């Protein structure tokens, strides 16, 4: 065992990269859930985004176009969920699970010709001076743009929910959709937009895995990241800041346990592999033991009567 082989600079730098996909997917799901929609299809939307982004990036040679296509792909799939739950008034849990299965199947079909191909590399930030700083340079200033985009998105969602009228209406719809309807707010329209935003974010998160993190295409490559994002939203008590914290914690321990495995620590690999899940959930459960609670209309079907 040689712990000195673990480089803290690289560890922190790869923490941000490992956290980004679940961070972006979770913040999208958080918005959907704050509007009262429980979309369990995050995994399906992520994998769909992963393959959409991969195909477009490979065909056009532009990672940027790839990410845009991923967002559109995820959002399109989420519209299927919206159609089922908002207009056909189907059960949200069942529809979400169906969406995940459907997304896994569709992505496998779409990706048949793309196994074993390398996507065009996503450029990394390279700021003269800042990126050359020892320690801070590699940790903070040398990532690809999506890492910064993810963090900015969390800040934007937090500010939107807390300070804007749009955020207030979103929270009101998620809290009591009947009252919001009685006041004349368009419950279905608000939820439609929230679901679409959640889908686009999940798509982006998925594309980050296939274009940056791995980067290649294999079937089912999101490997449960969507479920982690879902769990993160719940254990973060539907608060944007805690989602960021939880994603970093999860990313950090994932990277750390990989490093520990490489360093040959005398703990069975299985325990190390499960540690990110256990520790993230444990920490967030302890944090969510205050009196914060779920949006009161979460998962309930809205039907305007009278």
């Amino acid at each position, binding site marked *: 065992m040689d712990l000195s082989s673990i480089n803290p600079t690289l560890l922190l730098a790869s923490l941000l990269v490992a956290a980004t996909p679940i961070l972006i997917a979770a913040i999208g799901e958080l918005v959907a859930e704050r509007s009262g929609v429980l979309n369990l299809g995050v995994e399906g939307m992520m994998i769909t985004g992963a393959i959409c982004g991969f195909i477009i990036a490979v065909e056009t040679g532009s990672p940027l176009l790839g990410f845009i296509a991923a967002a559109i792909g995820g959002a399109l799939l989420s519209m299927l969920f919206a159609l089922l739950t908002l207009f056909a008034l189907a059960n949200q849990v069942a529809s979400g699970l169906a969406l995940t299965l459907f997304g896994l199947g569709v992505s496998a079909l779409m990706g048949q010709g793309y196994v074993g191909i390398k996507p065009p590399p996503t450029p990394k930030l390279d700021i003269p001076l800042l990126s050359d700083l020892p320690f801070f340079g590699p940790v903070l200033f040398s990532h690809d743009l999506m890492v910064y985009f993810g963090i900015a998105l969390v800040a934007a969602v937090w500010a939107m929910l807390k300070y804007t*009228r749009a955020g*207030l*209406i979103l*929270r*009101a719809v998620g*809290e*009591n959709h*009947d*009252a*919001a309807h*009685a*006041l*004349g*707010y368009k419950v279905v329209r608000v939820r439609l937009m929230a679901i679409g935003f959640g889908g686009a974010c999940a798509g982006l998160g998925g594309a980050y895995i296939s274009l940056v993190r791995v980067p290649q295409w294999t079937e089912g490559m999101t490997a449960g990241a969507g479920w982690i994002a879902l769990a993160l939203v719940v254990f973060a008590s539907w608060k944007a800041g805690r989602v960021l914290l939880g994603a970093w914690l999860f990313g950090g321990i994932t990277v750390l346990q990989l490093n520990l495995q490489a360093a040959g620590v005398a703990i069975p690999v299985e325990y190390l592999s499960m540690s990110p899940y256990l520790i993230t959930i444990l920490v967030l459960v302890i944090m969510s033991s205050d*009196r914060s*609670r779920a*949006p*009161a209309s979460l998962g309930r079907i809205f039907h305007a009567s*009278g």
Partner: protein
Amino acid sequence: MTDTLLTISGLTKAYPGVVANDTVSFEIKEGEVHALLGENGAGKSTLVKMIYGLVKPDSGTMTLRGEVFAPPEPRAARATGVAMVFQHFSLFDALNVAENIALGMENPPPMGDLASRIREVSENYGLPLDPFRTVGDLSAGERQRVEIIRCLLQDPKLLIMDEPTSVLTPQEVEILFQTLRKLTSEGVAILYISHKLEEIRTLCDHATILRLGKNVSTCIPAETSARDMAELMVGSAFASPARADRELGEIALDISGLSVASTGAFGTPLRNIHLTVQEGEILGIGGVAGNGQDELLTALSGEVTTDHDAVKFMGQPVGRLGPTARREMGLLTAPEERLGHAAAPDMSLIENALLTAAQRENLMHRGFLKWADTRSFANRVIEAFDVRTPGPENAARSLSGGNLQKFVIGREVLQNPKVLVVNQPTWGVDAAAAASIRQSLLDLAAGGTAVICISQDLDELMEISDRFGALNEGRLSDIRPAQGLTVDEIGLMMGGAHGMEVAHG
């Protein structure tokens, strides 16, 4: 101030199978309080929803101050000066007062300015309120103040109030009336919906009475007796509940030192409750909603178990027994919430009858259900309590609130309980049906049953109960004979006006 504010003429709205409003016409003058009366299902809600822009009329017109008024949505109605305080408060528990108010406004000012305007208006009208408290923590009276202030901040010309006093203590009602009178003196018209006829007699200038969707008559409440108004609503005479002399028997239910932790996040724990009820006696328990009524009912029904000796039924401790065992012994309960607690909404009336009556009516045999017997039991309930439904196969959800209430009370009454606990037995039920439900409770007591009636309707409690106590923050007041209690005494037993003693200078 006798100019006409709102004229409604020939308003009609039909839903599949039912005409909710059939050529309704009346006028509201500026600065008057206009009452809208009618039984459950008479079309009052549909009518105010049309005025507020939530529902579009099929035909007919409205004019507001001489101009055509056809709001396509509530926003438009609010913009022209129509505001509404809802029966079931349309508030968001997890948001604070200022946020709730901002949601009801078209162009809310920044939060800081809004908070100071809320303070200003609330002091002007004697409705103290802290803009930054979370609504979920407020009492029912305070929540209503939030709704009223939300309306007042928009300088309304017409304020619609749907059953505003059903959750208030007498003192809070008095404060509300002072606020409303102050508003009318400023020229605001109020459209007031209530089942409480005495309140309408005190407050309202004119009344329009709806029956089966049509406006059948108008009256001046101050000059009409409550009974005449009730008969106008029903369209025929009905009997008031009559008390028979009854002999009190053994102590049927003895509760001593009952304390129960609260179940829900916004619930109230019960603290050291003592009470006894004798056979043939009706004990009325008043109090504003959310002061431990639901918890008391669940502790008595067995949904929540307690110390074994805290609840004694006919001398036997039953505190640790569950609902089924208690039902078998003859301790029956009818909870408040009709859809979801007292009845399973999507199951038929037959199935719902089976759910509580299986033991006492012998509707099961070795685990198999006797559907024929259950059907005839459900039919007996429907007949005896005049439940209006096409048949017992219909889902509980399809019944109107009042009819379902008659069914869930009737289902327990017909099982010949030894002790019956009811919570809000006539909530949302019209005058005639309420009278028949109260009569059935009185008849039950006359037959030797001990009845505990938990209710927020003080008139009801005074009408039927022998002794009266009030719940306040999970504590039960001293229990006193009901006869001779004054409204002020009752109000104090209920905990007064919750710190609302405000100068109405």
